[in-house]
């Protein structure tokens, strides 16, 4: 075991310090040390997008980021997007369009879609589909997800 490193971040608007080994991924730190279990471990190799978070304004696969790399960074996880009492428009539209079944991929999709709407508030269907190509869903067949994101444009 190598020495733990002190990492200072801002997560969902709050200053968060943690200790982690260099070998721990950001995903492991979020889930196992910080109890932010919204980001999911799907493939753990950058293919499925279930672990996606926004880091310094960019969408990243948190399984492909080391926790130590997050030092000085601002991170948004699904826990920072809406709340049970006050859903984010994307979350509301996912419900209205039944854009989920088992739900494992949903946090990753919402985070990815938020990153898209932050950058491009009025994407075309093609732009939505290409942007979300790095998020895999094995239940819905994607159409309902794409419709939910399209419906959340402008409202987001």
């Amino acid at each position, binding site marked *: 075991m190598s020495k733990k490193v002190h990492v200072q971040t801002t997560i969902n608007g709050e200053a968060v310090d943690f200790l982690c080994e260099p070998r721990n991924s950001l995903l492991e730190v979020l889930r196992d040390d910080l109890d932010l279990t919204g980001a999911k471990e799907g493939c753990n*190799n*950058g293919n499925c997008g279930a672990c996606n978070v926004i*880091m310094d304004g960019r969408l*990243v696969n948190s399984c*492909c980021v080391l926790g130590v*790399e997050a030092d000085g960074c601002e991170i948004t996880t699904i826990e920072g997007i809406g709340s049970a009492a006050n859903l984010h428009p994307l979350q509301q539209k996912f419900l209205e369009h039944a854009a989920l079944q088992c739900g494992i991929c949903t946090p990753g999709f919402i985070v990815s879609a938020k990153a898209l709407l932050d950058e491009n508030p009025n994407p075309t269907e093609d732009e939505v589909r290409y942007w979300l190509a*790095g998020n895999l869903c094995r239940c819905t067949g994607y159409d309902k997800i794409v419709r939910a994101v399209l419906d959340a444009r402008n409202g987001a």
Partner: protein
Amino acid sequence: MHAFDYATPESVADAVVMLSDHGKNACVLAGGTDLIVQLREHRRRTDLVVDVKKIAELNALSCDASTGLTIGAAVPCYRIYGDAEIAAAYPGLMDAARLVGGTGIQGRASLGGNLCNASPAGDTIPPMIVLSGQAEIAGPNGTRKVAVEDFCTAPGRTLLGDGEFLVSLHFPAPAPNSGAFYRRFIPRNEMDIAVVGVGASVVLSEDKSTFVSARIAVGAVAPTPLFVREAGDALAGQPVSDESIRRAADLAREAARPISDMRGTAEYRKHLTSVLTRRVVEGAVQRAKE
């Protein structure tokens, strides 16, 4: 993942010292989209991960009409295609930068990392070759520059020696009447690994009727991305015609020495090399005319 130490040097010189001290037991981290997965899956071992993203030269991104384009080795894809001036001047490079993984990968993955990972199917490598890219390498004996086509030596292997690492990539300013194009064949629409990838750049005469010069490179059909010099040379001085382009495509097909694997048979890949080369040269010609 096995335990390792982590360092964030802030200068090229400091990174060289760290890498030299550890020899083969150190590795360089830029976007991490290949490295972290390889460490996790025990395909690589290391005692020290040297994160080069705090070094200014590795984050440089500049474009100048006279001196050309410089891309720091750690600059992620999104910064490259997000720069309107660079995207307009080097569309052939954008073709590839936009299709490495999904959006989350492009938030981290760099052209430098794609080159150092040395996959035969690395999408950004054929366009970097045809755009006459030069790789600037720092090491214990100072810096050196090598052509991108000479960088990869085998699957996953490069000519980087102990203590050496890639600092930046340089591309000359586009010549007048030139165009470049990259396209890969995949059975899906997105998020896949090339069965065959082809890059081409062409320079046309002022009236756009004749090839002045051309460069063609192919991916996923040899142990490394392959510069097919003879295919481009065969176009030089020839009229822009179906016949001349078909001849170049035949030469690219002949140069391809693919294997058969889950993505396609050798025969299929050779056929694709010819078809894609034709289409990609036509795409480059079209851009040269625009």
